[in-house]
């Protein structure tokens, strides 16, 4: 098992080091100081692709209508991607009722999100197009706060800070924390031009840039990741802002979370594989030399977590059950111990314990806490005491659960690879 230890702790070491290094550099630069101001109002098209979203789409459209922006420079395009529910009629109803904003409702057979976006982009009149997921709700001032980033002509996309909408249970609370942590990391990555995703919930794209790269990949299951890679390929700037907010409905149970993460994990592996020539490629700057290798390392770390859980928890558990079996389930004997046995056991544990690993774990834990505190600050959230309990679970249980979902994604991939050869 020695080589596994070396690989895993090595990956741990390097990724932790790079994270601290990156955040530290970021905080020294303090990019918050220069805040661009909106000088003129360009024409903007909000695209809402929807597939069976009857429960949420009304509020999504409402949030788009309520955005603080001149009416004559705004249009909303709802794309009904062959929904089997009332999505279409709800959208049509809005189109009829709303007088001051142009609402276009498109309807076609189910073709997927990427294709829906492309069809809407073809009809969009805006200089900028926005992807607004039909289960997400944009804050009033988000658009106004995000548009100024496009003053820089190399900027192709600006993404809002994605937050979990009113978390109701512990799983959603955990995701709430996860999202702001990732938002913070994406803000940091923006400063070194390493963003690898333009989240569907709310991202503004410069339409000319989308045309330049040929729009969304219609076959990708994570089209908002895939498009980021191709924008990076053409050396566009991708921005994660920290001003605008969009709230999205997070999976409320493990089954839903599993379905979502399986798609994400599978999608990120496929996307990384599709663009494998960019990994360690100097031509793509830090994105190729730092970000993609880190993503690869991150995937390995998930494996590390799985193996650590198996070795540290499942194997000992099996051993204890085996011991009980060997004692014919005589509990009194199982618990038999005396004082000297306890003391010598304690001494043995103390001397066999790996303090170097413990130290790394403590460092990792403190770094994560520090990152979370910074994440709260940069996403304009207050640190709540009530979050401390889910916080503890956050670090221990949540990533373990995600790791196991990761296995599911890989098994799925292997199965589907046997069916149709992707890449």
């Amino acid at each position, binding site marked *: 098992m020695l080589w596994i230890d070396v690989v895993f702790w090595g990956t741990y070491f390097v990724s932790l080091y790079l994270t*601290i290094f990156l955040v530290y550099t970021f905080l020294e630069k303090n990019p918050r100081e220069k805040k661009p101001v909106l000088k003129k109002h360009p024409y903007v098209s909000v695209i809402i692709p929807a597939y069976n979203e009857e429960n949420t789409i009304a509020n999504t459209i409402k949030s788009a209508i309520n955005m603080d922006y001149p009416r004559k420079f705004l249009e909303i395009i709802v794309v009904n991607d062959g929904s089997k529910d009332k999505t279409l009629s709800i959208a049509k109803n809005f189109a009829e009722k709303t007088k001051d904003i142009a609402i276009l409702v498109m309807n076609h057979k189910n073709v997927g999100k990427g294709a829906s976006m492309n069809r809407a982009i073809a009809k969009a009149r805006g200089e900028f197009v926005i992807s607004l997921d039909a289960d997400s709700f944009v804050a009033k001032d988000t658009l106004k706060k995000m548009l100024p980033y496009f003053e820089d002509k190399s900027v192709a996309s600006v993404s809002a800070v994605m937050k979990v909408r009113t978390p109701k249970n512990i799983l959603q609370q955990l995701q709430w924390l996860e999202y702001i942590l990732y938002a913070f990391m994406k803000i940091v990555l923006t400063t070194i031009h390493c963003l690898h995703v333009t989240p569907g919930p709310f991202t503004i794209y410069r339409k000319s840039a989308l045309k330049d790269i040929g729009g969304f990949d219609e076959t990708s299951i994570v089209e908002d990741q895939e498009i980021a890679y191709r924008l990076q390929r053409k050396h566009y700037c991708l921005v994660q802002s920290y001003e605008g907010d969009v709230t999205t409905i997070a999976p409320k149970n493990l089954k839903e979370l599993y379905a979502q993460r399986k798609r994400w994990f599978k999608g990120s592996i496929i996307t990384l594989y599709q663009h494998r020539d960019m990994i360690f490629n100097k031509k793509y700057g830090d994105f190729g030399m730092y970000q993609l290798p880190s993503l690869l390392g991150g995937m390995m770390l998930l494996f590390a977590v799985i193996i650590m859980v198996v070795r540290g928890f499942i194997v000992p558990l099996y051993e204890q059950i085996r011991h009980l079996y*060997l*004692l014919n389930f005589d509990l009194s004997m199982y618990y038999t111990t005396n004082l000297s046995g306890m003391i010598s056991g304690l001494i043995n544990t103390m001397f066999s314990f790996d303090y*170097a690993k413990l130290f*790394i774990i403590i460092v990792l834990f403190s770094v994560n806490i520090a990152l979370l505190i910074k994440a709260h600050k940069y996403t304009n959230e207050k640190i709540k005491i009530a979050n401390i309990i889910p916080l503890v679970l956050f670090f221990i249980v949540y990533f373990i659960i995600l790791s196991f979902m990761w296995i599911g994604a890989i098994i799925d991939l292997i199965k589907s690879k046997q069916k149709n050869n992707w890449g």
Partner: protein
Amino acid sequence: MGLLTVLIFSLGLLLGLFVNESKLNYIQQLSKTQRADYGSLQFQYSYIETLENKDMSDDEKCGVLAATLENNLKMLSPALEKIEAYETSGDVENEDYLLLKREYTIANLRYWILAEKSKKMCMTDTVSVLYFYTKNCPECNDQGYILTQMKKVFEDSLLVFPIDTSINEPAVDVLTRQYNITTYPTLIIEKKRLHEVKDKNELTEIICPLYFNKTKYTLCSGG
């Protein structure tokens, strides 16, 4: 800039190295005292040998024997702890460890002979178990665990002598040949040879009838 991170990591590595170093020092320190203990046991054993010709009552002889047995017990258990400390630290290729293990095994065998002698001469109510095991044998771990738990119940009246046959010790070879040990784990309980892992119930059935006073242990009287 990145100095802080370098510092944190160096500190972590240094701490790891430091702890490892002190761990080895601890084991080596224990080894030195161990040497002296073995010397002392050697003397006591020779002294017992001369007892048979001496003009002493059986009670007196048994007294000396009991005292020696007790000393053996006292010195052997820390020796085992030390060996375990080596084993958990993974430093089993260490020369010191191998030497320690041989000395421990010989002392154990000597203790076993004394115990047999004591049982014959002084009717001490004990049961001896010779436990032959080897490296890389998962079943041996199971058997070892059961014996450890049994020992906790029977305490000093169950004497377990673990013999690692994978160390190169001629004294061990003598025994494996005598008892014709070919598979592991094998238990020798009062001349009875047992192959394969014996669980708690099986061992209780074998051990209990061997005690003079069978009602002393709930495990034996309870069935």
